[in-house]
């Protein structure tokens, strides 16, 4: 008996009653551990079961559904207009994008088009929301990896966006900013000034975030070469959004199939080459700058005119099906709506980007370390409200 086992056996016989100890309590078996659903780094109620060999990940399984509210079922029991606020509760950090996708899908089904002024307002608010979503992602993602400072910076600046939302429609998070056929609210006095002021304010701030992280040695070590996914795998797994673009695929629905007023603006699609966590970070940082470019162009030339198209008070789209998708901050957000000619949709299917992107987690973390799982969950930028619906 070695000293260590002797002391162990003494311990067990004295108060713990563990019985005779093994020769050594260390073994080399695979270990299955449970992460979440209550875990600060899973961004909500995500449970991941990890199979480990030491610190190496051999496989994962995601258990989701803790936040399932049956949004698609609710839609079948609400009128088209009544369901509109519900979509904000899916991806709650990008509520404006959800609303835009839903409103445009129903408009297509009704065969109406929002007036140009409404389209410009929609673009400005959606891009502001994209910035807010990316800022929240950056703050929490950096926090997960161990950099606490960016969280305070990004939340400070995101606050300015939420203030604009609050002044425009009264809500900060679940905005319900748009209506089927246009917007309910005219822009408030000084809206354009506020937005321009915000753009000027936030431009140097994005440089500031980059100064903190881009060349930071710890950040680079924790993100470079972590969670690599190739362009082919991305497409096969249906991954969209910044994750796809960081793998080198230049695909953005705003360019590929322009909606709202995006064809009027000049902007680029940033891409990466390596498809690792670091590239995804760079792509999102560039995207924030591109969003500012779009806002700058849009706010200077909001056309005059009505903000609502002529839509009937009671919406009864003709019998038919429609699929419409937009580029949400997380990827392709689609709505598949079936109308039976009544006031309520027969079926609403939401194609959530987070849900499909989360499927790639397993492939991205296999062979990596446990700590990298946290980094990869952060870099996928999932919102559980949207995964579970």
């Amino acid at each position, binding site marked *: 008996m070695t000293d260590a086992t002797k002391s162990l056996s003494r311990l067990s016989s004295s108060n713990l009653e563990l019985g005779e100890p093994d020769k050594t309590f260390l073994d080399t078996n695979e270990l299955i551990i449970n992460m979440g659903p209550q875990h600060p780094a899973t961004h909500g109620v995500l449970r991941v079961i990890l199979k480990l060999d030491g610190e190496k990940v051999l496989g994962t399984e995601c258990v989701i559904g803790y936040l399932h509210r049956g949004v698609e079922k609710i839609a079948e*029991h609400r009128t088209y207009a009544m369901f509109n606020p519900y979509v904000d509760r899916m991806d709650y950090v990008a509520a404006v994008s959800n609303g835009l996708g839903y409103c445009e899908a129903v408009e297509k089904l009704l065969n109406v088009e929002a007036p140009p002024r409404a389209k410009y307002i929609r673009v400005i608010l959606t891009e502001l929301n994209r910035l807010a979503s990316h800022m929240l992602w950056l703050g929490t993602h950096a926090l997960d990896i161990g950099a606490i400072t960016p969280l305070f910076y990004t939340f400070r600046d995101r606050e300015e966006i939420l203030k604009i939302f609050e002044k425009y429609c009264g809500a900060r998070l679940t905005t319900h900013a748009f209506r089927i056929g246009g917007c309910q609210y005219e822009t408030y006095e000084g809206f354009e000034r506020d937005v321009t002021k915000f753009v000027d304010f936030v431009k140097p701030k994005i440089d500031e975030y980059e100064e903190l992280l881009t060349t930071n040695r710890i950040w680079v070590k924790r993100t470079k070469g972590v969670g690599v996914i190739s362009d082919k795998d991305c497409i096969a797994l249906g991954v969209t959004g910044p994750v796809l673009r960081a793998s080198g695929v230049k695909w953005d629905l705003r360019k590929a199939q322009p909606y709202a007023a995006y064809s009027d603006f000049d902007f680029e699609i940033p891409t990466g080459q390596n498809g690792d966590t670091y590239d995804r970070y760079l792509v999102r940082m560039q995207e924030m700058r591109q969003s500012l470019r779009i806002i700058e162009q849009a706010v200077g030339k909001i056309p005059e005119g009505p903000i609502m198209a002529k839509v009937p008070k009671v919406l009864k789209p003709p019998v038919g099906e429609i699929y419409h998708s937009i580029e949400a901050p997380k990827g392709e957000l689609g709505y598949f709506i079936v109308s039976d000619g009544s006031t309520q949709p027969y079926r609403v299917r939401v*194609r959530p980007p987070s849900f499909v992107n*989360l*499927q790639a987690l397993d492939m991205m973390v296999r062979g990596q370390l446990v700590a990298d799982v946290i980094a990869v969950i952060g870099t996928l930028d999932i919102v559980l409200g949207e995964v579970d*619906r």
Partner: protein
Amino acid sequence: MVTRLKAQYGSGIREANTYLGQNYMVVEPSIAAELLQILRDQEQFDYCVDVTAVHYPNREKQFDLIWILYSHVRNERIRVKIMITDGETAPSSVSIWPAANWLEREVYDMFGIRFEGHPDLKRILLPDGWKGHPLRKDYGIIQQDQEWVQINLGIESGQ
């Protein structure tokens, strides 16, 4: 493309049309697996956007099962639809697009449609022991699996 496929399958393609500028095909379930494979390999629909279903309880073939596909090369979308009866299995497309894995599991969870050839067909959003498939039209909006709720949550009702 449609004429090419029609020449190959004839009446297997029951309808190929455009509504509001969106293309869709209604095909026989028997040729669905082969057709989906051809759409990916030859027609370059490399990205499976969504797999979903719609329930029509008054029809003989109760379910519409829909694949929404996109081609990066052609920048085009297409919807492939099959109609199946309750209890009939559908061909799985996981071997064609890995993306369909969770999407098919969700369809199974919500509608109870079984996919043949799916590697791991089990519930995804609802708990494993749950009874019933909520997106069927005969499932009420406040209906729940009382037994499951009582045993697992220790409460009388979730309402």
